[in-house]
């Protein structure tokens, strides 16, 4: 009996030690949680460092850092603590990282990511935790169906973009009658397709056909064959990134371009152009939220600062977006002279001004930043002044989306 008792004691001791060990391990293993110091404001940049858009993460971050360096990492009397997290372009993981950073670092402002799908998850986290969120991307739901008091959009509205693209195409191809659409198959693509279908008649253009392809598609020969059978005057693409590049490459292989133009209606600009051979991009028109030849003093200093960091490559949309998002967030804090998200939001609503892309105005009703959208046309290789002299900007427009098309019924309160 005594041996059984001592056995019991021993197993209790082992258990106790094990539990203590587990607790110690848990404490040691896990990073200590930090909360923001009083004189600090914590801003989170959530970017794709790994995964499908891993090439964009470092570029976006570079743009952000330039904006922070311009103000010396200080704003409204406080130090700025800028932290980043990997979105992996997975909405669930990004939501976890954003929530975790809010809990452990005291994040009050979030910018990023790159992908619209992920943004729609992050905006929910921002809304729930009442932190300000500024996104730059294609989904108009951020200032539409899913609008809320804490979320803002930096990229131009898709309506603005489609209008500008069609206008310029018709201007340089006055005899053109039809376009064929390649549309990436999800909500973003469908919305832009709807807008193009609405706007095309205004410019005397017919839509010869539409093909929706899955996101991440690489093999376009079947779509190209279908398109070429309808003999359109251009292929108008509502997609981006590698999808767009692959399609352009194959359109070139099939001989459609450079004979006829290809329109990349929602392009990252430089980031996509560098991945193409000069022969492929000889006759492209692209619409973009940022192009580095924009002629404003703010932009010149940004481009110079960026080239120093990038080894001479000019910034495309990604760094332009990172820079723009941080600039606007800082602007709100400066105008409010506070880092309280509520005060910053109130300062931003209805704010008008000029920045590195030109004139901007923040719509107080849906938090859309109304700002210029750029349409450019590429130059043939022999006309390029240097290897990054891809294109010339032909149009800068800020046509706001018509009120009746915007689905933000009520942005709500704090």
């Amino acid at each position: 009996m005594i041996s059984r008792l001592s056995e019991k004691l021993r197993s209790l001791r082992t258990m106790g030690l094990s539990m203590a060990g587990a607790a110690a391990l848990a404490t040691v293993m896990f990073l200590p949680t930090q909360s923001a110091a009083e004189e600090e404001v914590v801003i989170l940049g959530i970017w794709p460092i790994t995964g499908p858009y891993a090439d964009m993460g470092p570029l976006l971050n570079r743009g952000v850092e330039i904006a922070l360096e311009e103000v010396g990492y200080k704003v409204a009397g406080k130090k700025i603590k800028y932290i980043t997290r990997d979105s992996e372009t997975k909405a669930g993981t990004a939501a976890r990282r954003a929530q975790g950073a809010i809990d452990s670092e005291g994040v009050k402002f979030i910018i990023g990511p790159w992908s619209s799908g992920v943004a729609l998850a992050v905006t929910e986290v921002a809304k729930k935790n009442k932190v300000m969120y500024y996104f730059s991307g294609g989904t108009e739901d951020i200032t539409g169906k899913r609008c809320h008091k804490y979320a803002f959009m930096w990229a131009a509205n898709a309506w603005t973009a489609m209008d500008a693209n069609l206008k310029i195409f018709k201007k340089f191809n006055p005899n053109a009658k039809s376009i064929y659409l390649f549309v990436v198959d999800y909500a973003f693509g469908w919305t832009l397709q709807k807008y193009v279908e609405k706007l095309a008649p205004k410019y005397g253009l017919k839509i010869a056909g539409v093909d929706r392809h899955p996101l991440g598609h690489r093999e376009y020969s079947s779509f190209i064959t279908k398109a070429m059978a309808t003999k359109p005057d251009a292929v108008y693409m509502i997609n981006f990134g590698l999808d767009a590049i692959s399609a352009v490459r194959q359109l070139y292989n099939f001989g459609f371009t450079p004979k006829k133009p290809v329109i990349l209606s929602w392009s990252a600009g430089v980031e996509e152009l560098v991945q193409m051979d000069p022969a492929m991009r000889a006759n492209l028109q692209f619409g973009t939220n940022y192009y580095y030849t924009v002629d404003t003093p703010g932009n010149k200093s940004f481009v110079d600062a960026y080239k120093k960091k990038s080894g001479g490559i000019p910034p495309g949309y990604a760094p332009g977006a990172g820079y723009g998002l941080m600039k606007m967030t800082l602007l709100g804090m400066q105008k409010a002279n506070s880092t309280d998200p509520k005060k910053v939001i109130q300062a931003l609503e209805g704010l008008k001004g000029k920045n590195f892309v030109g004139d901007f105005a923040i719509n107080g009703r849906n938090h859309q930043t109304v700002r210029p959208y750029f349409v450019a046309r590429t130059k043939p290789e022999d006309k390029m002044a240097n290897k990054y002299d891809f294109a010339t900007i032909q149009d800068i427009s800020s046509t706001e989306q018509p009120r009746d098309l915007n689905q933000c019924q009520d942005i709500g309160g704090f």
Partner: protein
Amino acid sequence: MRDRNIFLIVLAFVVIGPFVQPKVIITEMLIFGIVAVANNIMIGYTGMLSFGQAMFFGIGAYVAGLLLKAGMPLIVALPVGTLFVLVLSIAVGYFCVQRTGLYFICITFAFNQMFYFIAYSWTGLTGGEDGLPGIPRPSLLLDPVAFYVFVAVVFLACLVAMKRIVDSPLGLICQTIRENPSRAAAVGYNVKLYKLTAFTIASTFTGLAGTVYAMLYGIVPIDQIHWLKSGDFIFMTLLGGTGNFFGPILGAVGYIWMSETFSLYWARWPLIMGIVFVVVVVYLRGGIVELIGKVYGSIQRAREAP
């Protein structure tokens, strides 16, 4: 170590965890802990490697999410979601268990892809690529602490239930099937039926975990039904250790911890994950449990040495 003791350690972790880590991280560890343990019912106990468990996790999340959005109370949404996955897993499982080995992997993968495609295309129902938003939490669970307690209770309850199942004759038969399917058949067991049972049980608990996940961020993102998520589940189960019922919990904890920690320090952190996985697969096939066993064993030997 006695199972009851391990259970107490798990309990300790559940209680202490939220004090040393952001609640959301621990919550995910518990949710995916359920999935990993359930997955092990197939991998460790029955010898079936499924590359499609994400479909059940995702479907559970979508169904529960839609019901909650429609105003159903929690007591309806979660069980109905779980029940839906149960019925579906019987149908899917029926086809999958017809094959073994590589073919089993491929057919579970194919089903996963098909459900992913349905979720992606049926945007009216699931939101497609943009995810299913606006899932409300019942007012009782709005407080993060209350929600965590809820998840912890569900986690522990699932553990108890699954432990009961694997300790029952069913569990033993499954292990027999894993060891030698032809012998099991020769003795008279309907191998396919038992495999289907294991498949259904594992998938149902996975779906249940999914229903809880729907309330975590108020959104069901589409990556939760993607085949890469199925790969994550396998990783978690194997990392923890398939030879022990509780092992996969360590795998879920370890995987999420590594993912959160490594991503802070190096942009190419998936490479480290790959190396860890290689080490586990080549040297430490029993996972973290085997590692602990080895460490424990060498401590014992050191103590017993004269």
